[in-house]
């Protein structure tokens, strides 16, 4: 029983980790919590669903989800957030909520409000060390691992990734060093969107696809980003895994509905006890 919950928790945790990665990158570099991240996930899930229906391939679905969410995310930046760069953070927060509502409304109108599922073939679970694991979980874990590897590759092995981390560390110093902010921001929003898209696709495959799915996962993603330490990609993934496992393992005790509440309690506790999270840096300013 515990083993099965643990496996479910790891898969769920990878999904949260990817979503938290999207949140923490934007929070660390563009410096506000993007409430539209959840609905960007939803957009990816629907794009993936449509591609999966048309092609039957989960790989194609993953590609479609990434591309769709990356585009949505970039449009949000170019059309709204870029124009608000010099405004107080409250403006960005309100605008992000507005974008989230717009996205959810558009998806509901375009794809309908009924819950949809990915038609994936049922398969016998495989036995690994006495644990029975559904093959789909292995596939999803593989997908998540590849996506995370790709994201970390971009962040730590490419020039644009280095520039992004430089902006996260010190925006002014980065600008003085000749890093062009617009390029970094475009790359940031594309990367964050793609991560959110994969998270949305995985959540859709694992559970159901509905216009509300992303918004409902938003709080958990915020909690993981804060627990991991804002701006820390590795922290986000680690915290996502911890939260995912905690949520699944605690479900028999606290019930299904309190999953999100657990995320909230974790978030409060982290903010009060260790605001910089597990792997975050101490922020010099404020």
């Amino acid at each position: 029983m515990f083993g099965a919950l643990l496996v479910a928790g790891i898969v769920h945790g990878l999904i949260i980790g990817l979503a938290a990665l999207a949140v923490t990158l934007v929070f660390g570099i563009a410096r506000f919590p993007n409430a539209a991240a959840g609905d960007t996930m939803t957009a990816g899930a629907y794009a993936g669903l449509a591609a999966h229906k048309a092609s039957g391939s989960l790989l194609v679905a993953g590609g479609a989800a990434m591309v769709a969410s990356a585009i949505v995310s970039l449009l949000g930046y170019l059309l709204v957030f870029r124009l608000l760069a010099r405004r107080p953070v409250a403006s960005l927060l309100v605008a992000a909520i507005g974008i989230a509502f717009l996205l959810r409304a558009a998806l509901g109108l375009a794809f309908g409000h009924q819950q949809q599922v990915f038609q994936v073939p049922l398969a016998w679970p495989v036995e690994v060390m006495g644990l029975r694991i559904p093959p789909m979980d292995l596939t999803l874990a593989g997908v998540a691992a590849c996506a995370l590897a790709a994201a970390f590759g971009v962040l730590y092995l490419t020039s644009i990734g280095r520039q992004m981390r430089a902006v996260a560390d010190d925006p002014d110093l980065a600008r003085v060093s000749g890093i062009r902010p617009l390029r970094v921001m475009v790359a940031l929003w594309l990367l964050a969107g793609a991560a959110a898209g994969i998270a949305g696709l995985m959540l859709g495959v694992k559970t159901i696809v509905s216009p509300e799915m992303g918004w409902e996962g938003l709080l958990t993603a915020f909690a993981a980003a804060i627990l991991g330490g804002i701006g820390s990609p590795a922290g986000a993934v680690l915290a996502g895994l911890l939260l995912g496992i905690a949520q699944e393992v605690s479900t028999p005790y606290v019930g299904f509905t309190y999953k999100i509440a657990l995320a909230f309690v974790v978030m409060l506790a982290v903010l009060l006890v260790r605001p910089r999270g597990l792997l975050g840096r101490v922020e010099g300013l404020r």
Partner: protein
Amino acid sequence: MEAYLVAIAIIAAIYVLLTLGLTLQYGLTGLVNFGHVGFFAIGAYASALLSLQGVPLVACFAAAAAIAALAAYPIGLVALRLRDDYFAVVTLGFSETVRLVITSERWLTNGVQGIPGIPRSFAGMGVGMPGALATLGAIALVCMAVALMLRRVVRSPFGRAIEAIRDNEDALRALGKDPARFKIQVLALGSALAGLAGAFYAHYITYLSPDQFIPLVTFYVWMAMIMGGVGRVSGAVVGALLLMLFLEGTRFLRDLAPDLISAVDMASVRLGAVGLALVVFTLFRPQGLMGDYTRR
């Protein structure tokens, strides 16, 4: 027709009260409260449950405001240590947690089935128009009192202090004032207003369920505040009335042509319109229609 007008006037007045609370918190003090609906829900449920235990309604209303303010206190303590952006996330999480507790704790709140048969306010004056008119009169009086109080607050030393928190917290601290105390007071007071609005709502609708307290309600109030004008008492009133016009207008449109668009699609259109309004106002008119044109 008159009954309909009175009904929407009551709901509009409830939104006015909610918007006044948010104006105090965000408009004047700069606290980004994304969990307003949580305090609204606490007030509504507190008053409903107490009244079903036979507590007189006046005491229920007072308790609703007090309990909502008490609930805001711990959130305020947390908030003192947080930046605006974290505070927004925490309050949003708080309101969702309130809704989850209402959904889950069936022994107290009857869960998703909701609480029916909540005593109607001014039921002694008759079920139809007289009772509704008395309710409208009462809530209108409360709104006016609160609006007048806020106008006085703006001109008081307290008002100057909280506006300083919004504009330059460090300067306030340099003057030897403690922003923390002001923030907690403002948060508790605004939440008490939301709780009071919740009590009016509970005893007018007479039925409560968790899905009446989704985060969208918080952002209805934000939309009202931003449309009306941030930091303006008159703006809160105008904005809430505009919001009501929008909410009833979209319902009216659908009633005109029910075959054209389904109820769920209309809900999406409404959600999208709220989102668009939030984005467009933030981008192009952050001070709102009646906003303070001299600042920001």
